[in-house]
Protein backbone atom coordinates (compact mmCIF):
# COMPACT_ATOMS: atom_id res chain seq x y z
CA UNK A 1 0.00 0.00 0.00
CA UNK A 2 1.29 3.41 -0.85
CA UNK A 3 1.04 6.36 1.50
CA UNK A 4 -1.78 7.79 -0.59
CA UNK A 5 -3.83 4.63 -0.09
CA UNK A 6 -3.15 4.59 3.63
CA UNK A 7 -4.23 8.24 3.82
CA UNK A 8 -7.33 7.52 1.78
CA UNK A 9 -8.50 4.71 4.04
CA UNK A 10 -7.63 6.65 7.17
CA UNK A 11 -9.54 9.74 6.01
CA UNK A 12 -12.51 7.68 4.85
CA UNK A 13 -12.70 5.86 8.15
CA UNK A 14 -12.41 9.18 9.98
CA UNK A 15 -15.17 10.73 7.86
CA UNK A 16 -17.57 7.82 8.37
CA UNK A 17 -16.84 7.52 12.08
CA UNK A 18 -17.27 11.27 12.65
CA UNK A 19 -20.48 11.32 10.62
CA UNK A 20 -21.89 8.51 12.77
CA UNK A 21 -20.84 10.38 15.88
CA UNK A 22 -22.70 13.47 14.63
CA UNK A 23 -25.88 11.38 14.68
CA UNK A 24 -25.41 9.48 17.91
CA UNK A 25 -24.07 12.32 20.08
CA UNK A 26 -26.60 13.31 22.69
CA UNK A 27 -25.20 16.78 23.10
CA UNK A 28 -25.83 19.07 20.08
CA UNK A 29 -22.54 20.92 20.65
CA UNK A 30 -20.70 17.60 20.36
CA UNK A 31 -22.59 16.92 17.13
CA UNK A 32 -21.40 20.20 15.66
CA UNK A 33 -17.80 19.47 16.66
CA UNK A 34 -17.96 16.01 15.07
CA UNK A 35 -19.38 17.61 11.93
CA UNK A 36 -16.30 19.84 11.83
CA UNK A 37 -14.19 16.67 12.00
CA UNK A 38 -16.13 15.39 8.96
CA UNK A 39 -15.27 18.57 7.06
CA UNK A 40 -11.62 18.11 7.93
CA UNK A 41 -11.67 14.55 6.62
CA UNK A 42 -13.34 15.68 3.38
CA UNK A 43 -10.77 18.44 2.96
CA UNK A 44 -8.12 15.77 3.37
CA UNK A 45 -9.70 13.90 0.45
CA UNK A 46 -9.56 17.07 -1.64
CA UNK A 47 -5.86 17.40 -0.88
CA UNK A 48 -5.32 13.79 -1.96
CA UNK A 49 -6.90 14.79 -5.28
CA UNK A 50 -4.51 17.78 -5.44
CA UNK A 51 -7.44 20.19 -5.13
CA UNK A 52 -5.79 22.45 -2.57
CA UNK A 53 -8.02 25.42 -3.20
CA UNK A 54 -11.23 23.41 -2.74
CA UNK A 55 -9.79 21.88 0.41
CA UNK A 56 -8.98 25.17 2.09
CA UNK A 57 -12.18 26.90 0.94
CA UNK A 58 -14.17 23.98 2.32
CA UNK A 59 -12.46 24.57 5.66
CA UNK A 60 -12.78 28.36 5.65
CA UNK A 61 -16.41 28.47 4.55
CA UNK A 62 -17.94 25.39 6.18
CA UNK A 63 -15.78 24.68 9.20
CA UNK A 64 -14.69 28.26 9.78
CA UNK A 65 -17.84 30.27 9.19
CA UNK A 66 -21.02 28.22 8.90
CA UNK A 67 -20.23 25.87 11.77
CA UNK A 68 -19.32 28.82 14.01
CA UNK A 69 -22.79 30.25 13.35
CA UNK A 70 -24.31 26.82 14.13
CA UNK A 71 -22.40 26.80 17.41
CA UNK A 72 -23.65 30.33 18.17
CA UNK A 73 -27.25 29.31 17.75
CA UNK A 74 -26.91 26.09 19.71
CA UNK A 75 -25.02 27.72 22.56
CA UNK A 76 -27.52 30.58 22.82
CA UNK A 77 -30.58 28.34 22.62
CA UNK A 78 -29.20 26.47 25.61
CA UNK A 79 -29.75 23.07 24.11
CA UNK A 80 -26.88 21.70 26.15
CA UNK A 81 -29.08 20.03 28.76
CA UNK A 82 -29.21 16.59 27.17
CA UNK A 83 -33.01 16.90 27.09
CA UNK A 84 -33.81 15.46 23.70
CA UNK A 85 -37.35 14.06 23.70
CA UNK A 86 -37.40 10.28 23.47
CA UNK A 87 -38.92 9.26 20.17
CA UNK A 88 -41.08 6.18 19.79
CA UNK A 89 -39.36 2.99 18.62
CA UNK A 90 -41.52 2.85 15.45
CA UNK A 91 -40.41 6.35 14.51
CA UNK A 92 -36.77 5.34 14.84
CA UNK A 93 -37.36 2.20 12.79
CA UNK A 94 -39.15 4.12 10.04
CA UNK A 95 -36.35 6.66 9.95
CA UNK A 96 -33.69 3.98 9.70
CA UNK A 97 -35.52 2.16 6.88
CA UNK A 98 -36.20 5.27 4.80
CA UNK A 99 -32.65 6.52 5.33
CA UNK A 100 -31.29 3.12 4.32
CA UNK A 101 -33.39 3.15 1.15
CA UNK A 102 -32.09 6.60 0.28
CA UNK A 103 -28.50 5.40 0.82
CA UNK A 104 -29.13 2.41 -1.48
CA UNK A 105 -30.53 4.65 -4.23
CA UNK A 106 -27.56 7.00 -3.95
CA UNK A 107 -25.00 4.19 -4.03
CA UNK A 108 -26.56 2.51 -7.07
CA UNK A 109 -26.84 5.91 -8.80
CA UNK A 110 -23.16 6.64 -8.29
CA UNK A 111 -22.16 3.12 -9.35
CA UNK A 112 -24.14 3.22 -12.58
CA UNK A 113 -23.91 6.87 -13.60
CA UNK A 114 -22.42 7.20 -17.08
CA UNK A 115 -20.23 10.06 -15.88
CA UNK A 116 -18.36 7.76 -13.56
CA UNK A 117 -18.05 4.69 -15.79
CA UNK A 118 -14.46 3.71 -16.50
CA UNK A 119 -13.08 6.86 -14.88
CA UNK A 120 -10.22 6.90 -12.44
CA UNK A 121 -9.60 9.38 -9.65
CA UNK A 122 -6.64 11.62 -10.44
CA UNK A 123 -4.82 11.08 -7.17
CA UNK A 124 -2.15 13.71 -6.67
CA UNK A 125 -1.93 14.54 -10.39
CA UNK A 126 -5.14 16.34 -11.26
CA UNK A 127 -4.88 20.11 -11.44
CA UNK A 128 -8.47 21.31 -11.87
CA UNK A 129 -8.68 21.96 -8.14
CA UNK A 130 -5.83 24.46 -8.22
CA UNK A 131 -7.01 28.03 -7.99
CA UNK A 132 -5.76 29.12 -11.42
CA UNK A 133 -7.55 26.39 -13.38
CA UNK A 134 -10.66 26.52 -11.25
CA UNK A 135 -10.91 30.30 -11.67
CA UNK A 136 -10.48 30.04 -15.43
CA UNK A 137 -13.17 27.36 -15.68
CA UNK A 138 -15.58 29.31 -13.49
CA UNK A 139 -15.16 32.59 -15.33
CA UNK A 140 -15.21 31.19 -18.87
CA UNK A 141 -17.23 27.98 -19.29
CA UNK A 142 -19.47 28.40 -16.26
CA UNK A 143 -19.75 32.16 -16.01
CA UNK A 144 -23.56 32.28 -16.22
CA UNK A 145 -24.29 29.74 -13.46
CA UNK A 146 -21.56 31.36 -11.39
CA UNK A 147 -23.10 34.82 -11.67
CA UNK A 148 -26.61 33.48 -11.08
CA UNK A 149 -25.52 31.78 -7.88
CA UNK A 150 -23.88 35.01 -6.72
CA UNK A 151 -27.17 36.85 -7.30
CA UNK A 152 -28.84 34.11 -5.29
CA UNK A 153 -26.44 34.73 -2.41
CA UNK A 154 -27.07 38.45 -2.63
CA UNK A 155 -30.82 37.97 -2.43
CA UNK A 156 -30.36 35.66 0.57
CA UNK A 157 -28.28 38.37 2.26
CA UNK A 158 -30.91 41.03 1.57
CA UNK A 159 -33.58 38.67 2.86
CA UNK A 160 -31.63 38.09 6.07
CA UNK A 161 -31.27 41.84 6.63
CA UNK A 162 -35.01 42.35 6.03
CA UNK A 163 -35.92 39.60 8.50
CA UNK A 164 -33.36 40.93 10.98
CA UNK A 165 -34.95 44.38 11.03
CA UNK A 166 -37.78 44.40 13.53
CA UNK A 167 -39.96 47.12 11.97
Amino acid at each position, binding site marked *: *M*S*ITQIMFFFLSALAVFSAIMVLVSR*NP*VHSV*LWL*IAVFFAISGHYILLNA*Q*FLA*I*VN*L*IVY*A*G*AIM*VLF*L*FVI*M*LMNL*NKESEPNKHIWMKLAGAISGGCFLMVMVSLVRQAADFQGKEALVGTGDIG*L*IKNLGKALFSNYVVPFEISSVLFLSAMVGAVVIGKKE
Partner: protein
Amino acid sequence: MTLLAFDWALLIEKLVLIAVIVFGSLGIALYTTFAERKVAAVLQDRPGPNRAGPFGLFQPFADGLKLIMKEEIIPNTSNKVLFILGPGLAMTAALMTCAVIPWSSHVELFDRKIELQIADINIGILYVFGVVSMGVYGIMIGGWASNNKFSLMAALRGASQAISYELAMGLSLIAVLMLSGSLSLKSIVGEQMADGSLWNIAYQPLGFFIFFICALAECNRTPFDLPEAENELNFGYHQEYSSMKLGFYLFAEYVNMIMSSAVMACLYFGGYDIPFLDESTLAPNIAALLGVGALLTKIVIFIFIFMWIRWTIPRFRYDQLMNLGWKTMIPLALANMLITGAVILWKAGA
Protein backbone atom coordinates in the same frame (compact mmCIF):
# COMPACT_ATOMS: atom_id res chain seq x y z
CA MET B 1 7.47 -3.34 -0.84
CA THR B 2 6.75 0.25 -1.69
CA LEU B 3 5.48 1.11 1.75
CA LEU B 4 6.93 4.36 3.03
CA ALA B 5 9.28 4.71 0.10
CA PHE B 6 10.15 8.35 0.15
CA ASP B 7 12.92 10.81 0.77
CA TRP B 8 13.82 10.27 4.43
CA ALA B 9 16.39 13.06 4.36
CA LEU B 10 13.62 15.48 3.36
CA LEU B 11 11.49 14.25 6.24
CA ILE B 12 14.31 14.80 8.73
CA GLU B 13 15.08 18.20 7.23
CA LYS B 14 11.45 19.29 7.56
CA LEU B 15 11.13 17.91 11.09
CA VAL B 16 14.21 19.84 12.20
CA LEU B 17 12.86 22.96 10.51
CA ILE B 18 9.46 22.55 12.17
CA ALA B 19 11.08 22.03 15.58
CA VAL B 20 13.31 25.09 15.17
CA ILE B 21 10.45 27.31 13.99
CA VAL B 22 7.93 26.16 16.59
CA PHE B 23 10.35 26.40 19.51
CA GLY B 24 11.75 29.64 18.12
CA SER B 25 8.24 31.14 17.98
CA LEU B 26 7.51 29.93 21.50
CA GLY B 27 10.78 31.45 22.71
CA ILE B 28 10.00 34.77 21.07
CA ALA B 29 6.47 34.65 22.51
CA LEU B 30 7.98 34.01 25.96
CA TYR B 31 10.03 37.16 25.70
CA THR B 32 7.15 39.08 24.13
CA THR B 33 5.27 38.72 27.43
CA PHE B 34 8.31 40.23 29.13
CA ALA B 35 8.58 42.98 26.51
CA GLU B 36 4.89 43.77 26.97
CA ARG B 37 5.41 44.45 30.65
CA LYS B 38 8.58 46.46 30.01
CA VAL B 39 6.92 48.57 27.30
CA ALA B 40 3.93 49.16 29.55
CA ALA B 41 6.31 50.20 32.31
CA VAL B 42 8.17 52.65 30.07
CA LEU B 43 4.92 54.17 28.80
CA GLN B 44 3.60 54.53 32.34
CA ASP B 45 6.91 55.83 33.72
CA ARG B 46 7.71 53.01 36.15
CA PRO B 47 10.53 50.44 36.23
CA GLY B 48 8.56 47.30 35.36
CA PRO B 49 9.71 43.75 36.24
CA ASN B 50 13.33 44.00 37.37
CA ARG B 51 13.80 41.45 40.17
CA ALA B 52 14.42 38.09 38.49
CA GLY B 53 17.92 38.10 37.02
CA PRO B 54 19.69 41.05 35.40
CA PHE B 55 17.13 43.66 34.25
CA GLY B 56 14.45 41.13 35.15
CA LEU B 57 15.40 38.96 32.18
CA PHE B 58 14.40 35.71 33.89
CA GLN B 59 10.91 37.02 34.61
CA PRO B 60 9.17 34.99 31.84
CA PHE B 61 10.66 31.74 33.20
CA ALA B 62 9.51 32.66 36.70
CA ASP B 63 6.03 33.35 35.31
CA GLY B 64 5.99 30.06 33.42
CA LEU B 65 7.12 28.13 36.47
CA LYS B 66 4.44 29.83 38.54
CA LEU B 67 1.72 28.91 36.03
CA ILE B 68 2.84 25.26 35.96
CA MET B 69 3.05 24.97 39.74
CA LYS B 70 -0.42 26.43 40.33
CA GLU B 71 -3.24 24.10 41.23
CA GLU B 72 -5.23 23.00 38.22
CA ILE B 73 -8.93 23.54 38.77
CA ILE B 74 -11.55 22.04 36.47
CA PRO B 75 -15.04 23.22 37.41
CA ASN B 76 -17.42 20.43 38.43
CA THR B 77 -20.18 21.50 36.08
CA SER B 78 -17.92 21.98 33.09
CA ASN B 79 -17.63 19.72 30.09
CA LYS B 80 -14.26 18.17 30.91
CA VAL B 81 -13.12 16.99 27.47
CA LEU B 82 -13.98 20.26 25.77
CA PHE B 83 -12.65 22.26 28.70
CA ILE B 84 -9.22 20.74 28.10
CA LEU B 85 -9.56 20.79 24.31
CA GLY B 86 -10.18 24.57 24.21
CA PRO B 87 -6.75 25.91 25.20
CA GLY B 88 -5.06 23.16 23.18
CA LEU B 89 -6.95 24.21 20.06
CA ALA B 90 -6.15 27.87 20.63
CA MET B 91 -2.44 27.09 20.91
CA THR B 92 -2.38 24.66 17.97
CA ALA B 93 -4.16 27.07 15.67
CA ALA B 94 -1.79 29.87 16.67
CA LEU B 95 1.31 27.78 15.95
CA MET B 96 0.07 26.17 12.72
CA THR B 97 0.27 29.46 10.84
CA CYS B 98 4.06 29.29 10.82
CA ALA B 99 3.99 26.45 8.27
CA VAL B 100 3.58 28.70 5.23
CA ILE B 101 5.60 31.74 6.31
CA PRO B 102 8.85 32.03 4.34
CA TRP B 103 11.39 32.78 7.04
CA SER B 104 14.14 33.39 4.53
CA SER B 105 15.54 32.18 1.19
CA HIS B 106 17.44 28.87 1.19
CA VAL B 107 20.61 27.70 2.91
CA GLU B 108 23.02 25.13 1.49
CA LEU B 109 23.98 22.56 4.08
CA PHE B 110 25.42 19.02 3.63
CA ASP B 111 25.08 19.38 -0.18
CA ARG B 112 21.37 20.00 0.15
CA LYS B 113 19.40 23.09 -0.73
CA ILE B 114 17.18 23.68 2.27
CA GLU B 115 14.29 26.10 1.86
CA LEU B 116 13.65 28.00 5.07
CA GLN B 117 9.91 27.51 4.77
CA ILE B 118 8.05 24.46 6.02
CA ALA B 119 5.69 24.22 3.06
CA ASP B 120 5.46 26.41 -0.02
CA ILE B 121 1.92 25.52 -0.97
CA ASN B 122 -0.11 26.85 -3.84
CA ILE B 123 -2.68 28.46 -1.53
CA GLY B 124 -0.31 29.85 1.14
CA ILE B 125 -2.20 32.87 2.38
CA LEU B 126 -5.60 31.12 2.27
CA TYR B 127 -4.12 28.46 4.53
CA VAL B 128 -3.36 31.23 7.03
CA PHE B 129 -6.99 32.34 6.86
CA GLY B 130 -8.21 28.78 7.31
CA VAL B 131 -6.07 28.30 10.40
CA VAL B 132 -7.10 31.66 11.83
CA SER B 133 -10.75 30.72 11.47
CA MET B 134 -9.98 27.51 13.40
CA GLY B 135 -8.58 29.65 16.21
CA VAL B 136 -12.11 30.90 16.88
CA TYR B 137 -13.07 27.41 18.05
CA GLY B 138 -10.46 27.56 20.81
CA ILE B 139 -12.23 30.57 22.26
CA MET B 140 -15.77 29.32 21.68
CA ILE B 141 -15.22 25.80 23.00
CA GLY B 142 -13.34 27.07 26.04
CA GLY B 143 -15.99 29.67 26.80
CA TRP B 144 -18.89 27.27 26.41
CA ALA B 145 -17.31 24.34 28.24
CA SER B 146 -16.63 26.51 31.30
CA ASN B 147 -20.41 26.59 31.89
CA ASN B 148 -20.27 30.17 33.08
CA LYS B 149 -22.42 32.87 31.54
CA PHE B 150 -19.63 35.45 31.50
CA SER B 151 -17.30 33.05 29.74
CA LEU B 152 -20.01 32.23 27.20
CA MET B 153 -20.80 35.88 26.52
CA ALA B 154 -17.10 36.65 26.08
CA ALA B 155 -16.66 33.67 23.77
CA LEU B 156 -19.58 34.79 21.60
CA ARG B 157 -18.18 38.29 21.48
CA GLY B 158 -14.76 37.01 20.53
CA ALA B 159 -16.10 34.77 17.79
CA SER B 160 -18.38 37.39 16.24
CA GLN B 161 -15.58 39.94 16.36
CA ALA B 162 -13.19 37.53 14.65
CA ILE B 163 -15.70 36.66 11.93
CA SER B 164 -16.58 40.31 11.27
CA TYR B 165 -12.99 41.45 10.92
CA GLU B 166 -11.97 38.41 8.89
CA LEU B 167 -14.21 39.72 6.10
CA ALA B 168 -12.52 43.12 5.87
CA MET B 169 -9.14 41.41 6.20
CA GLY B 170 -9.89 39.10 3.29
CA LEU B 171 -11.12 41.99 1.14
CA SER B 172 -8.00 44.06 1.78
CA LEU B 173 -5.94 40.98 0.99
CA ILE B 174 -7.59 40.61 -2.42
CA ALA B 175 -6.00 43.89 -3.54
CA VAL B 176 -2.53 42.50 -2.72
CA LEU B 177 -3.34 39.29 -4.56
CA MET B 178 -4.41 41.28 -7.63
CA LEU B 179 -0.97 42.92 -7.64
CA SER B 180 1.02 39.74 -7.11
CA GLY B 181 -1.15 37.26 -9.00
CA SER B 182 -0.23 34.48 -6.60
CA LEU B 183 -1.43 33.10 -3.28
CA SER B 184 1.93 31.67 -2.28
CA LEU B 185 3.65 33.83 0.32
CA LYS B 186 7.03 32.92 -1.13
CA SER B 187 6.20 34.34 -4.55
CA ILE B 188 4.52 37.41 -2.99
CA VAL B 189 7.80 38.10 -1.18
CA GLY B 190 9.85 37.25 -4.27
CA GLU B 191 7.86 39.76 -6.29
CA GLN B 192 8.63 42.53 -3.81
CA MET B 193 12.32 41.58 -3.77
CA ALA B 194 12.73 41.75 -7.54
CA ASP B 195 14.80 44.57 -9.03
CA GLY B 196 12.95 47.83 -9.54
CA SER B 197 9.84 46.84 -7.58
CA LEU B 198 8.81 48.49 -4.35
CA TRP B 199 7.32 46.84 -1.29
CA ASN B 200 3.57 46.39 -1.45
CA ILE B 201 3.05 49.07 1.20
CA ALA B 202 3.95 51.63 -1.49
CA TYR B 203 1.04 50.45 -3.66
CA GLN B 204 -1.37 49.48 -0.91
CA PRO B 205 -1.18 51.98 1.98
CA LEU B 206 -4.93 51.87 2.62
CA GLY B 207 -5.00 48.10 2.26
CA PHE B 208 -2.24 47.75 4.82
CA PHE B 209 -4.03 50.11 7.22
CA ILE B 210 -7.20 47.98 7.01
CA PHE B 211 -5.23 44.76 7.33
CA PHE B 212 -3.38 46.06 10.37
CA ILE B 213 -6.56 47.10 12.18
CA CYS B 214 -8.16 43.76 11.39
CA ALA B 215 -5.05 41.98 12.66
CA LEU B 216 -5.41 43.85 15.94
CA ALA B 217 -9.01 42.70 16.15
CA GLU B 218 -8.15 39.10 15.21
CA CYS B 219 -5.51 38.92 17.93
CA ASN B 220 -7.98 40.34 20.48
CA ARG B 221 -5.59 43.17 21.23
CA THR B 222 -6.59 46.54 22.64
CA PRO B 223 -8.51 48.56 21.44
CA PHE B 224 -10.43 45.44 20.37
CA ASP B 225 -9.95 43.27 23.45
CA LEU B 226 -13.69 43.09 24.07
CA PRO B 227 -13.64 39.34 24.84
CA GLU B 228 -11.57 40.05 27.94
CA ALA B 229 -13.16 43.34 28.97
CA GLU B 230 -12.57 42.91 32.71
CA ASN B 231 -15.03 45.51 33.92
CA GLU B 232 -17.93 43.95 31.97
CA LEU B 233 -17.10 40.26 31.86
CA ASN B 234 -14.89 39.69 34.92
CA PHE B 235 -12.01 38.04 33.08
CA GLY B 236 -13.46 37.01 29.74
CA TYR B 237 -13.69 33.60 28.13
CA HIS B 238 -10.83 32.12 30.16
CA GLN B 239 -12.30 33.08 33.51
CA GLU B 240 -12.68 29.51 34.80
CA TYR B 241 -9.22 28.49 33.67
CA SER B 242 -6.24 28.18 35.95
CA SER B 243 -2.69 26.93 35.84
CA MET B 244 -1.06 26.23 32.46
CA LYS B 245 -4.40 26.01 30.62
CA LEU B 246 -4.86 29.70 31.34
CA GLY B 247 -1.23 30.14 30.33
CA PHE B 248 -1.98 28.51 26.97
CA TYR B 249 -4.77 30.98 26.24
CA LEU B 250 -2.63 33.97 27.21
CA PHE B 251 0.35 32.58 25.36
CA ALA B 252 -1.64 31.83 22.21
CA GLU B 253 -2.41 35.54 22.01
CA TYR B 254 1.30 36.34 21.89
CA VAL B 255 2.00 33.62 19.33
CA ASN B 256 -0.86 35.04 17.25
CA MET B 257 0.73 38.47 17.47
CA ILE B 258 4.05 37.11 16.18
CA MET B 259 2.39 35.22 13.34
CA SER B 260 0.22 38.13 12.23
CA SER B 261 3.28 40.40 12.34
CA ALA B 262 5.13 37.89 10.16
CA VAL B 263 2.23 37.72 7.70
CA MET B 264 2.00 41.51 7.51
CA ALA B 265 5.76 41.76 6.98
CA CYS B 266 5.54 39.22 4.14
CA LEU B 267 2.50 40.77 2.48
CA TYR B 268 3.35 44.46 2.71
CA PHE B 269 6.95 44.93 3.83
CA GLY B 270 8.93 42.59 1.62
CA GLY B 271 9.24 39.66 4.03
CA TYR B 272 12.92 38.79 4.42
CA ASP B 273 14.00 41.49 1.97
CA ILE B 274 16.70 43.86 3.23
CA PRO B 275 16.09 47.35 1.85
CA PHE B 276 18.76 48.84 -0.45
CA LEU B 277 20.71 45.59 -0.66
CA ASP B 278 20.92 43.16 -3.53
CA GLU B 279 20.92 39.77 -1.79
CA SER B 280 22.05 37.91 -4.91
CA THR B 281 25.54 39.42 -4.54
CA LEU B 282 26.03 37.65 -1.19
CA ALA B 283 26.79 34.00 -0.52
CA PRO B 284 23.44 32.18 -0.22
CA ASN B 285 23.95 31.11 3.39
CA ILE B 286 24.87 34.61 4.56
CA ALA B 287 22.00 36.12 2.59
CA ALA B 288 19.61 33.61 4.20
CA LEU B 289 20.80 34.44 7.72
CA LEU B 290 20.59 38.18 7.06
CA GLY B 291 17.11 37.59 5.65
CA VAL B 292 15.97 35.84 8.84
CA GLY B 293 17.38 38.81 10.76
CA ALA B 294 15.50 41.27 8.54
CA LEU B 295 12.18 39.44 8.93
CA LEU B 296 12.65 39.16 12.71
CA THR B 297 13.44 42.89 12.91
CA LYS B 298 10.22 43.69 11.04
CA ILE B 299 8.29 41.35 13.35
CA VAL B 300 9.75 43.01 16.44
CA ILE B 301 8.82 46.46 15.13
CA PHE B 302 5.24 45.33 14.51
CA ILE B 303 5.00 43.75 17.96
CA PHE B 304 6.24 46.99 19.49
CA ILE B 305 3.53 48.91 17.62
CA PHE B 306 0.93 46.41 18.89
CA MET B 307 2.08 47.09 22.45
CA TRP B 308 2.34 50.80 21.96
CA ILE B 309 -1.30 50.85 20.84
CA ARG B 310 -2.36 48.64 23.73
CA TRP B 311 -0.96 51.03 26.33
CA THR B 312 -2.20 54.26 24.74
CA ILE B 313 -5.65 53.69 23.26
CA PRO B 314 -8.71 52.83 25.37
CA ARG B 315 -11.05 50.00 24.46
CA PHE B 316 -13.98 50.43 22.06
CA ARG B 317 -17.55 49.85 23.10
CA TYR B 318 -19.08 46.73 21.56
CA ASP B 319 -21.46 48.57 19.20
CA GLN B 320 -18.62 50.86 18.13
CA LEU B 321 -16.53 47.78 17.37
CA MET B 322 -19.23 46.28 15.16
CA ASN B 323 -19.95 49.61 13.44
CA LEU B 324 -16.28 50.08 12.70
CA GLY B 325 -15.97 46.57 11.31
CA TRP B 326 -19.07 46.45 9.14
CA LYS B 327 -19.72 50.08 8.24
CA THR B 328 -16.19 51.47 7.90
CA MET B 329 -13.67 48.71 7.31
CA ILE B 330 -15.63 46.64 4.79
CA PRO B 331 -16.69 49.59 2.56
CA LEU B 332 -13.13 50.98 2.71
CA ALA B 333 -11.69 47.60 1.78
CA LEU B 334 -14.18 47.28 -1.10
CA ALA B 335 -13.27 50.74 -2.38
CA ASN B 336 -9.58 49.86 -2.11
CA MET B 337 -10.22 46.70 -4.09
CA LEU B 338 -12.12 48.59 -6.81
CA ILE B 339 -9.45 51.28 -7.13
CA THR B 340 -6.67 48.71 -7.31
CA GLY B 341 -8.53 46.76 -9.97
CA ALA B 342 -9.22 49.93 -11.99
CA VAL B 343 -5.57 51.01 -11.82
CA ILE B 344 -4.36 47.58 -12.88
CA LEU B 345 -6.76 47.59 -15.85
CA TRP B 346 -5.77 51.14 -16.81
CA LYS B 347 -2.05 50.29 -16.70
CA ALA B 348 -2.61 47.09 -18.69
CA GLY B 349 -4.54 49.05 -21.30
CA ALA B 350 -2.04 51.93 -21.56
